[in-house]
């Protein structure tokens, strides 16, 4: 069972673990993220990087959770990682060296939440446009704020 192997072999890299509807979740400090993912990809058969996104908890310190999902096609198991980062320095190491697909997903998390991925050299907007101010999926972004790039017509 791959989950038992993870829990015993990577014991010193994560802080907390629990089961979420059949998926193993690991919570870990940000400095352990890259070593842990390196072992996931090289030893434990997690060959598919599904997603990276973030969760904003306004008022909590540290404010953001960065959430990673992995999948191993050999053993058909998924794994979720959670890393907490503060608002003052929301940076995590980029996983582009291990998974090429991380490039696009890190760009999305960067523009939507303002998470900085150190090591990803291409953090241009991917869904938003050049010149967009702020990070729209943060909870303090005004819900009805518009940033049009075409001037509105006068007579409406």
């Amino acid at each position, binding site marked *: 069972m791959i989950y038992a192997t993870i829990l015993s072999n990577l014991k010193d890299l994560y802080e907390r673990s629990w089961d979420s509807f059949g998926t193993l979740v690991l919570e870990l400090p940000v400095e352990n993220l890259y070593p842990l993912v390196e072992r996931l990809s090289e030893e434990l058969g997690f060959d598919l990087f599904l997603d990276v996104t973030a969760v904003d908890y306004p008022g909590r310190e540290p404010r953001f959770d960065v959430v990673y999902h992995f999948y191993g096609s050999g053993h058909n198991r998924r794994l979720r990682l959670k890393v907490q980062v503060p608002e003052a320095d929301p940076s995590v190491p980029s996983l582009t060296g291990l998974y090429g697909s991380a490039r696009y997903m890190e760009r999305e998390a960067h523009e939507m939440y303002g998470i900085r991925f150190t090591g990803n050299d291409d953090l241009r907007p991917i869904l*938003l446009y050049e010149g967009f101010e702020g990070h729209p999926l943060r909870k303090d972004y005004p819900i009805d704020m*518009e940033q049009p790039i*075409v001037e509105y017509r006068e007579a409406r």
Partner: protein
Amino acid sequence: MAMMDFLTTRKDELVGWVRKFSLFPYPFVTACCGMEFMAVSSTLYDTDRFGAALPRFTPRQSDLLMVVGTITHKEAPVIKRVYEQMCEPKWVMAFGACATSGGFYRNYAVLQGVDRVIPVDIYIPGCPPRPEMVIDAIMKLQDRIAGERHPILPFEEQNPVKG
């Protein structure tokens, strides 16, 4: 003078009648309303009956811009460019709730109605609209096209020099 009035009226009717049965739509389909557009333009509901069937996939050959679906702020320059490329006379139809008013998307991404960037002649509400509503809108637009005035003016007024 009475002869001239009579002649002008005939021209209005003729031009309006010709124009209203030769609408060439350009479907600018961006979202799920496109499924409804396909349904209404294919055999069961058949917009061909109204002379508005043949979609031209270039704005330069079309005169009815159908904005079918959600328009985002990122897409607004595209739809403006498409509208500017169309030759006169041209009409715009906002197809569905999103093109009309932004629909239920009130957020950072979505343009709150395509009439903020281009003038719209007819709006179809609904998410998505029923085919009957689309046909009704086409007929209403055709009535309006048929009722337009085309007065005979001196050449300078008919062809104003712009700029």
